[in-house]
């Protein structure tokens, strides 16, 4: 048998192929270029993202969940969470991108991903493609496409010229159609709830308004805020500042929606009818509250609901504290406050008006009467302006001025008023003076952008022709022979940067002095608390730091039966924080007396 040499050698010819290039493409050596605006894998700008979860909510395939990511904490307007995409479920429809309110979430041109580990299909955009994702953006929400309505339904207000003729409420309020439309803008992310000091159920009541269930919205609001209507008119609304939509458009008008739904309820009886509150049987415990301001009223309301015997001791003839006597009626009408207070009284809150602790009743007497005491007296003692001549007739303090005017009394201010200060009290004093027919100038020693007042209030003052003179430092108040103010001397200031990174400081420009003729000057540069009613032995046992009483997480002082709320205990100096304090104090008092 002949040997087939070819047959023997042929198999070995394959060895020659080993030296040639392969016919297959070795992954990922070559990549196809994608089409423009291709929808590939996600990329998330982690710093831009606020973790609102709207992407997760809209995803039709439940492909996105929200997870904690290292380096991001829950704080002002950021949930601390970031979206994670299950690429096994994602269909790359880009709805998540199109609705993203910050524009942080985008799709890239990357489309190839091979793995035998199903767990790695869970991809956290911006974390797992941190290095090159940003350079491959393809479908971007920044292209102007959005599923969101960025423009707010405007609020109608009285015209500037019209409003200074009276103390009529400036804000006219939404009608039903406007409220529904505005409520529809909410994406219910809940970021606002987080930052609200009270943690009001904002998306829930806005959704109720959107559905046309206004009474339900009222019930939701009263769940943890008995002064919802007040907040609807004057809240400092940190919720709106952090609103997710605020990143690319107007924030949802959370305050005005609250105002719409609460002010619709015309009287205390109707509030009671809607809420139909469940009032617990008396539990035999008695609580005294000093001050019928927002914190005192809040604590009293929820304590009364829980069966406590609650009495508020209020020095003045009306309840409300600074919201009654500090905020002008064109922002917060008296009947609105009365309505809310009347409802509280209807469920058992007792208020002893014209009863100043320390004068009409001693603190120790209160201690004898009640098992727990809560203090919410606010900051009512004004700082002196601190210039020569301020004791002259016609030199007055804004808090006193506003208290008199809001209490229905007359204060003679003449026709040329200078207000000194840059906070809300200064703006309020200026706008009230304007309504009394005066020409008004505000002297503020820093820049307008440094003014602590709400921008909306500053703008309101400007619309009413209040002159704001920034970088002006008062030097002296001059009087006539009868001791009545006649002019104020001030110097212009330059702003000096603070070496340590603080706010720039005003410094007088030597020789740049001016004088304004005046009939009154109103000081509005700050207030502090009056703790003079405390007996010495109590003062020794509590701690006061930076003018504020030191309290624990339930507003309790070092004396376990003594609670402090509002301006005297928090750093925010607004009504909503005082309400939050009052709400927390209820928990503290319950813990103390019902243990």
């Amino acid at each position, binding site marked *: 048998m002949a040997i087939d040499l070819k047959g023997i050698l042929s198999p070995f010819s394959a060895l020659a192929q080993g030296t040639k290039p392969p016919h297959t493409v070795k992954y990922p050596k070559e990549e196809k270029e994608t089409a423009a605006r291709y929808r590939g894998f996600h990329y998330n700008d982690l710093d831009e993202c606020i973790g609102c979860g709207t992407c997760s909510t809209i995803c039709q395939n439940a492909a996105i969940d929200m997870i904690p990511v290292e380096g991001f904490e829950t704080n002002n307007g950021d949930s601390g969470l970031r979206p994670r995409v299950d690429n096994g479920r994602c269909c790359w429809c880009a709805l998540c991108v199109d609705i993203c309110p910050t524009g942080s979430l985008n799709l890239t041109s990357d489309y190839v991903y091979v793995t035998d580990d199903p767990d790695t299909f869970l991809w956290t955009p911006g974390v797992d493609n941190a290095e090159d994702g940003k350079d491959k953006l393809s479908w971007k929400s920044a292209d102007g496409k959005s599923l969101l309505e960025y423009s707010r339904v405007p609020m109608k207000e009285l015209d500037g010229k019209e409003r200074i003729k009276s103390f009529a409420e400036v804000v006219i309020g939404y009608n039903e159609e406007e409220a529904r439309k505005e409520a529809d803008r909410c994406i219910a992310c809940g970021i606002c709830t987080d930052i609200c000091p009270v943690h009001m159920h904002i998306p829930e009541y806005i959704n109720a308004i959107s559905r046309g269930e206004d009474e339900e919205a009222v019930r939701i609001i009263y769940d943890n805020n008995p002064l919802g209507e007040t907040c609807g008119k004057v809240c400092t609304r940190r919720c709106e500042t952090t609103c997710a939509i605020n990143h690319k458009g107007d924030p949802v008008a959370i305050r005005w929606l609250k105002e719409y739904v609460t002010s619709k309820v015309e009287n205390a009886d109707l509030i009671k009818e809607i809420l139909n509150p469940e009032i617990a049987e008396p539990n035999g415990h008695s609580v005294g509250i000093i001050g019928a301001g927002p914190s005192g009223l809040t604590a009293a309301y929820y304590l009364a609901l829980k069966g406590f015997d609650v009495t508020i001791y209020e020095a003045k003839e009306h309840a409300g504290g600074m919201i009654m006597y500090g905020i002008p009626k064109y922002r917060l009408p008296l009947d609105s406050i009365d309505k809310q207070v009347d409802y509280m009284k209807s469920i058992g809150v007792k208020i002893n008006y014209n009863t100043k602790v320390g004068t009409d009743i001693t603190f120790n007497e209160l201690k004898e009467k009640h098992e727990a005491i809560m203090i919410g007296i606010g900051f009512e003692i004004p*700082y*002196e*302006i*601190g*210039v*020569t001549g301020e004791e002259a007739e016609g030199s007055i303090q804004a808090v006193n001025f506003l208290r008199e005017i809001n209490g229905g009394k007359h204060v003679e201010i003449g026709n040329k008023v200078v207000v000194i*200060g*840059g*906070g809300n009290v200064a703006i309020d004093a200026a706008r009230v003076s304007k309504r009394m027919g005066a020409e008004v100038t505000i002297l503020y020693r*820093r820049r307008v952008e*440094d003014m*602590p007042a709400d921008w909306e209030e500053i703008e309101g003052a400007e619309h009413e022709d209040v002159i704001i003179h920034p970088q002006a430092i008062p*030097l*002296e108040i001059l009087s006539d022979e009868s001791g009545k103010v006649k002019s104020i001397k001030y*110097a212009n200031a330059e702003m000096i940067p603070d070496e*340590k990174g*603080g*706010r720039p400081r005003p410094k*007088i420009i*030597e020789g740049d002095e001016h004088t304004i003729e005046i009939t009154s000057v109103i000081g509005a*540069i*700050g207030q*502090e608390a009056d703790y003079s009613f405390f007996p010495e032995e109590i003062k020794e046992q509590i701690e006061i730091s*930076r003018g504020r009483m030191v309290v624990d997480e339930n507003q309790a002082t070092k004396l376990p039966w003594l609670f402090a709320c509002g301006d005297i205990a928090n*750093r925010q*100096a607004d009504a909503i924080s005082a309400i939050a304090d009052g709400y927390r104090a209820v928990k503290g008092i319950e813990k103390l007396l019902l243990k």
Partner: protein
Amino acid sequence: MADLSTKYLGLKLKNPIIASSSTLTSNVESIKQLEKAGVSVVVLRSIFEEEITLETNRFIENAVEDGYDEALFDYYDKKVKQDNVENYLKLIRETKEAVNIPVIASINCKSDHEWIYFANKLENAGADALELNMFFLPSWSKRTVEENEALYFDIVNKVLQQVSIPLTLKVSHYFSDLSSTLLQLSKTGIKGLVLFNKFFTPDFDIETEKMTQNYVYSSPQDIALPLRWVSILSSQLKKEENNDCGIVASTGIHDGEGVIKQILAGADAVQIASTLYINGFEQVDKMLFDLNSWMEKKNYSSLDDFKGKLSYQGGDNPDQYERTQFMKNFSDKE
């Protein structure tokens, strides 16, 4: 016993030793001890505008560190100022109640409008007189020499318009034309000039290469500068008709000899502080004893008998006061 009494700011003093403004005059108890020790007048520790600024800055820095919004303390300096003024007014009132010697309040400011504000407040609290502790270090400002010196006159005139109690001015020697400026200031209506205030003087630690505070107290040798200028100014004031501005010597007066020297130079009284810190309050008694003994030895029955005897005009060799250089004939060394 010689008559040690003197007049200053229109006040009759039992002796010429005044407790100068210092921490020793910042509380009633200490002031009572000083009165007991024998001082004839007490100048309260100055209320400093700068301290108010520093206190405010510290407060705000700490508050910000603790998480407060700085804007929450927008005008907090006014509150600090108000508290400081109230505490100072309380000190004046309580001191006036506690002691029988005159009480002089003292002010030190940077802003001219603040001098007037404080002066008004302090007068109303019952101070017997006001001392303006005034200095604008040349390193402080961009002002010209003229502007800087004009500031003294401007502030003094404004304060004089506001207050009716006697005003005295404590100044430094940092003037381009000291003699003339002091003379002009004496004519403004002030009732006293205090020569001179003692400054914080920085020193360096060459190991740590940091600035330190070293020369806190004056030394007896520091008497030379005020001695010279008290001598010169007192003689000039003597020539002035209707100028009732008194002179008080300050800095470097540590013992009876120092008191005697300054009165010989023409001072109406002296202010002391360092010696009280170094030697205790009993030093006042020793100084008065030494003064009295010297006067008895010299047969002087009152201070007026020798006041100004060695002033520029009264000295045998007035030229010596104006020499600023060592010259061969004044030196013992070749």
